[in-house]
């Protein structure tokens, strides 16, 4: 899916901003990963994973990067 990656990056960062409140960053990353896995359409998940792989997740917050790296499609 060629959905604009900037939008997906923003969505991932917004999700991360919520879960980032948890002082335990392992739990926070798990929260982000689960949220994306359970609510994003397959092509969107694949696109953000590809963005992390191919562009080092440019624009993603540190927590979002950690979470995206754990997503399995």
């Amino acid at each position, binding site marked *: *899916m*060629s*959905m604009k990656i900037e939008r997906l990056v923003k969505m991932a960062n*917004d999700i991360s*901003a*919520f879960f980032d409140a948890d002082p335990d960053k392992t739990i926070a990353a798990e929260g982000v990963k689960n949220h994306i896995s*359970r*609510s994003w359409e*397959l092509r*969107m998940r694949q696109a953000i994973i590809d963005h992390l792989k191919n562009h080092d997740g440019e624009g993603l917050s540190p927590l979002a990067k950690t979470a995206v790296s754990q997503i399995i499609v």
Partner: protein
Amino acid sequence: MSMNKEKDFGTPASAATEMVNLEIDGFKVTVPAGTSVMRAAASIGIDIPKLCATDSIEPFGSCRLCVVQIEGGRGLPASCTTPVFEGMKAVTQNKQLAEVRRGVMELYISDHPLDCLTCSANGDCELQDMAGAVGLREVRYHPIETHLDAKKDTSNPYFSFDPSKCIVCSRCVRACEETQGTFALTIDGRGFDSKVSPGQNEDFLSSECVSCGACVQACPTATLMENNVIENGQPEHAIVTTCAYCGVGCSFRAEMKGEQVIRMVPNKDGKANHGHSCVKGRFAFGYATHKDRITKPMIRTSIQDAWKEVSWEEAITYAASEMKRIQAKYGKDSVGGLTSSRCTNEEAYLVQKLIRAGFGNNNVDTCARVCHSPTGYGLKQTFGESSGTQDFDSVMKSDVILVIGANPTDGHPVFGSQMKKRLRQGANLIVVDPREIDLVKTPHVQADYHLKLRPSTNVALINALAHVIVSEGLVDEDFVNARCEVASFNKWRTFIADERHSPEATEEITGVPAADMRAAARLYATAKNGAIYYGLGVTEHSQGSTMVIGIANLAMATGNLGRDGVGVNPLRGQNNVQGSCDMGSFPHELPGYRHVSDPETHDLFEKTWGAKLSINPGLRIPNMFDAALDNTFMGLYCEGEDIAQSDPDITHVHAALRAMECVIVQDIFLNETAKFAHVFLPGASFLEKDGTFTNAERRISPVRKTMRPLAGYADWEVTQMLSNALGYPMNYSHPSEIMAEIASLMPTFAGVSYAKIDELGSIQWPCYDEASTGTPIMHTEEFLRDNGKGLFMLTEFVATQERVNGKFPLILTTGRILAHYNVGAQTRRTENNVWHSEDILEIHPHDAEDRGINDGDWVGIKSRVGETVLHALVSERVQPGVVYTTFHFPESGANVITTDSSDWATNCPEYKVTAVQVTKVTQSSEWQQGYRAFTENQLDLLAQASNV
């Protein structure tokens, strides 16, 4: 079928549990203490004559027609104002009583036009009935002065006021006060000069009257009468159904002549509305037979082409072939659809079933995406179920009511009236809203605190309230320990106790004085029963879900859950938005809010539906638009929604719709979305089909057919035809069969059936088994999460990225108005335009003065994504720096300005926060000019439909 007139017991029922025994005319009767003699008599079938009494309002004792004799008592007391007592012996009829009543009637009739045969109330006039009941045979008085020449007031488009027929019983005045709570009517003058007067001798239209119809309903004569009855005569049968407007879901008697609706009368037995109504449900039903209705299926290849009227078979075959073609060309996931919150549960269920089983993907979404999707997410996470916790009647037990981002008197007027009734009884009120909504100060109601926060700072405010509760020892520790996950609470307690969440630290962010936040928090936390009601002012933010979670945290921390008078209550926007969500309209959830990947649920649905189902979440509405612009989402089946008007950043939406190869719109009108469509399937209004709606209190209510569908089919039948043409068979013969399937698949609906709905009138889910009568209040023993415990979650405030700056220095926020409903497709086609014929921009005097703007000026409103032009209204209801408008008229282009900023969890748009600049202009915007040209062109193409 018959009229089945509702019995009038004369006075309201007593809520007392203590019972009293008495005798009336020698018959023994047992009634609750506090019951009037009149009601006690009516309960055993003895109808004491009456005029000023009716059971929707408190007794008044003025007409003297209902006098009775009480053994051992003095005189002839009015039975309406005389409560029963143990051992009472009452006589309702003897010679003396008959003479008194006849004398009273004689006086009334001496100043009443004797035009019964041509009177609009003929056949439905209590005065006429009472004259008969008391045996009036002559009128000896012929007064020199009468009111027979009093001038009729026809200013209101829906009802007329004929004072020549008024008996000054004050029922209308009392209904306006007690039932509606507007206090628009009064008795002006004294003695002979006494007359019913709207406001200060104004006509009805110019007065404070909100046209709820309570006065018309209460009037015993033809004084206040529906114009429809005046024009068409009395109805001859009635069918009980449910209103198709807001999430209150009022029960109505559709009073009919053949297939013509004469009037919609609020049903006294309706458990959501108790015989009350608003201007929309009561009067604004004319859209259903409006000339704009499209009743023939139409197709076209391109949106530049003229429409072509075709047979149902041709339209359905074409639509199915297009969807199959697109899937063959672009892949299985290149199509999807939208269910409608204006359609029934059964219809929403069928549309999502067609998409999941027929299209083979989960690309289904619904309008809750743009309103209460954060409610679904937030309450599911914290409480375990995506719904409000209470029934509406719970508010009558509340001691402190916290209203956040909701405007009940405009958006949910019938519940607003019930809330005002409780407030007049003495409950405290806290309003959290950037704007001064009516509830802040209305007759006999004054908010204790109006926390006038800056738009987008909800979470900072809710955190501040929670901080006060935690730091001042106001937590209900017993509730938290017994009912919630203690580890999550402890983590939350540490988080929220941090000084950065204190009122003093957040004052700068919210703009609300810290002292007010502290006082409001204490008031809510120390209430015996504290209840929270909220609306789209909570959800339509980038932190909408966070705020819902914050509200849930607050209620759990204070133990305000699980009983009457408390709770977390989302005021749902559309009539069936709760129902459409329940029915599996979200792309990640099957019916009953169960995730598409949940193995047990997935297997159950695959087996029942006999189709291979995807375990992957589908596209949300905004994702569909993005995908369309990428040429990967090319076909949409849109039932009963108008995304081309309602969704944010409309220019983007329109571009996406233009990019699609097949847009199928099923609607009653050529709405905005239909202008981009290739197939038009005519829909049926709520009056033309059977089904159910589920309101904001989870109440499943019947929708019953009052007339045949104008286009020949109910919407569920159209979906079924489309599904069959797609190759996925559906063979339902009645919506009750669809409900039976729903009940077999959704545990919370397991005990729901049409037979039970007919028996009980309505059912609040969860309704787990055949014996259950539903659940008015949820989470009474434990929460519906797997472990039964409530979950506290951390709610850090994150400032919106939609920020003001020098170029866009004002915040635009949007809302609704009483007279109109959402995109206005229905109400704009009624006389409601009399009250509100265009969307206007409210701007504070300071901001207006800075820009040289006066009332009525054309002003341009420009955001980062677009510009539109509206008339200005200079008003102190908005605070400096904030402007406000409604979004009921497509030509206003409110969503030309709103951006794609959205809630982090659900992508619910941030409608409530758009940075804008406002300037005085002299002409409409470029977008508006383009819109007008496009619309004219589309209407031309429609006009050619029958000629092609």
